[in-house]
């Protein structure tokens, strides 16, 4: 929190100022404001339709806001050029691996766009495969030959390939079995700390958010209902809906303990 105390020394990595976005009559974002400092791991939580994915996509310019202003890495995100996007890692649930390229080629996309030398790219691909715990031989395979978990690991590796300082993730470990999901999440958190990244992760799973993130932002109907460290949120928040959401994993954990007889 020291960083926030001296904003003139440390400008935020991400800043949203009263950002609104409508799809037809539906408001996806309703005057949402958010600042994320360097090194933070922020989880955006909320039900479907709460606007969390839309908010995430305004940060790398995949969604242009109707009103308000978004800055990322010091640039205006609404005018987002491909150059800015190359500096922001992005991983999402559908992964979107290019089916006609091998795993290694998929990971190499951003470095290639950045004009790196072949040797540096090859080294980076090998490094990232190791980082997401995939055997090196996987690099020569096509995405269709991988399991769902392997594909999501490749998606994370691809997001990190261009050595971004900022990483955006949208349910990156969704559609995985709980064990793999837990491992991948923990693995990523370790990476985040080791590489000194700034991460914003969208999830609908409060347990995942509370376990991985330093800071949880709760959204509903395009507005930010609550924002704070997991421990603070429960202590400070009086909104019954937010409390309900936050307490759900706790209640679940207690019931599980009872049933497993631990």
């Amino acid at each position, binding site marked *: 929190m020291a960083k926030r105390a001296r904003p003139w020394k440390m400008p935020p990595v991400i800043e949203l100022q009263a950002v609104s976005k409508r799809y037809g009559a539906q408001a996806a974002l309703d005057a949402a404001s958010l600042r994320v400092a360097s090194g933070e791991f922020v989880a955006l939580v909320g039900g479907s339709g709460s606007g969390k994915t839309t908010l995430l996509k305004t940060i*790398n310019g*995949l969604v242009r806001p109707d009103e308000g202003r978004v800055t990322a890495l010091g640039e205006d995100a609404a005018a987002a050029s*491909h*150059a*800015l*996007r*190359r*500096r*922001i890692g*992005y991983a*999402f649930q*559908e*992964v*979107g*691996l*290019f*089916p*006609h390229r091998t795993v290694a080629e998929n990971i190499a*996309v*951003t470095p290639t*766009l*950045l004009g790196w030398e072949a040797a540096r790219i090859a080294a980076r691909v090998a490094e990232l495969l190791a980082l997401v715990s995939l055997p090196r031989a996987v690099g020569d395979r*096509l995405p269709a030959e991988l399991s769902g978990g392997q594909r999501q690991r490749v998606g994370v590796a*691809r997001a990190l390939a*261009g050595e971004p300082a900022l990483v955006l993730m949208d349910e990156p470990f969704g559609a995985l079995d709980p064990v793999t999901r837990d491992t991948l999440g923990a693995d990523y958190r370790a990476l985040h700390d080791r590489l000194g990244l700034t991460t914003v992760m969208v999830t609908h799973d409060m347990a995942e958010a509370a376990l991985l993130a330093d800071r949880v932002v709760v959204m509903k109907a395009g507005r930010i209902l609550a924002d704070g460290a997991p421990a603070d949120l429960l202590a400070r928040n009086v909104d019954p809906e937010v409390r309900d959401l936050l307490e759900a994993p706790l209640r679940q954990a207690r019931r599980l303990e009872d049933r497993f007889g631990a």
Partner: protein
Amino acid sequence: MSPRLAAAFERLSEYLGAHVLLSASALVLGVATSLPLAIAATRSARLRWPLLALASLIQTIPSLALLALFYPLLLALSALSLAALGVGFSALGFLPSLLALTLYSMLPILRNTVAGIGGVEPAIREAADALGMTPRQKLLQVELPLAAPVVMAGIRTAAVWTIGAATLSTPVGQTSLGNYIFAGLQTENWVFVLFGCAASAGLALAADQLLGLMEAGLRRRRRLLVLAGAVGLVAGVAFALLPLAGLGRPAAYVVGAKNFSEQYILAELMAGRLEREGARVARKDNLGSAVAYRALAAGELDVYVDYSGTLWTNVLGRTDNPGRQAVLDQLTAELARRDDVRVLGSLGFENAYAFVMRPDRARELGVASIADLARQAPGLRLGSDLEFLSRPEWKAVETAYGLKFRSATAYQPTFMYRALAGGEADVISAFSSDGRIAADRLVVLTDPKAAIPPYDAVVLVSPRRRDDARLLAALQPLIGKLPVEAMRAANYSVDRDGGKASPAEAARKLQTDLGL
């Protein structure tokens, strides 16, 4: 091998080469225009709908009509460019065929490219954007490679259509495998018709298989298959075009013929005489009636035979009938003045429109003249060729005698005679030099009001060749030397069912019989 089959094989390399050149060019041009248009359409919904609607609309125009439409269009453009830039171009043959077939090939390519790019998963598109690809990089590295199999399937469909429709370019003066079909239909040479169909179907099948190989290669991401298909295609096209290289030397003279037996025979007769003089001659067969004269005036043909009445009504737009000699004299003067075309003279026979009936039917109804016919007409069915009912001659006769038939049906000339013989028509608009009139002992009705103009067969020479000594020397001896009986016999030898002669054989026989 039967002589007709041998004759078909003899022409194969020329027809196939021209057919492949035309369809391959149209397809390449079609792909080159459709791909960028389709890509633009995927980017703009406002463009997509009108573009696809227009392409579908073009597809609904019968391909023969599309080909026919391009001729007058190009003729006007050529005249415009001649006036503005001093350079004209040929409105006949390759160019109109190429443009029509290109338009025809566009719909499947457009539709499949739009569908192929549109079918790329949104997640993959999103990844391409998020990873920092520019729109161009996304298109070239992601969208097009993923859409490639679907695009290739569209190209494959276009190829099959184009190869099939290219057979219809024969009537606008482009040599193609359609030459077999059109000539065969006119002379009832079914060997030619079948040969032309089989050759064009075989060609379409081969192109389809090779493109299919490329499509499978793209779908299964097997470069080798794509390469094999491409090499096969290029080799096939090169092989088909090879004989054309030998034909590259421009012929000294181009002899034209419209689309019926008499025209084929007369063209062969003139071409044979020129060749005997040592000249290189090219033949352009199966031209439409109006196309032939314009082509001659524009210098794309050097010589062909037309009929005085046709020129009188169609070219000069006259509806009066001042008499046989007066028509010929005025025509000679007018065509020279207007288009610098030389009327070398009449061959000595007429091929007029004539109302013809079966003898038993004519006797039964007591019909000997068109005036008699007019009284019976409301109960009778008229069979005509494809153009007669829209020609001014028909209007003239209709008005002069007050003709009103119970029904009127248009046929290919061959089938028109069949319809008369089979009783499906009571009277037909035949041609007076047709061999079938004598052979079937048909009755030619007289024209007491002289409503039908005279149709002397006249040799026309293009402006460029009007004073060409070699041409004139070769053709002058024909003038006035062909009696109608000789022409009828020659026509019949080509048209009859058994023991058919080819137009070239009939021309040679005519030449010796008349001691020319």
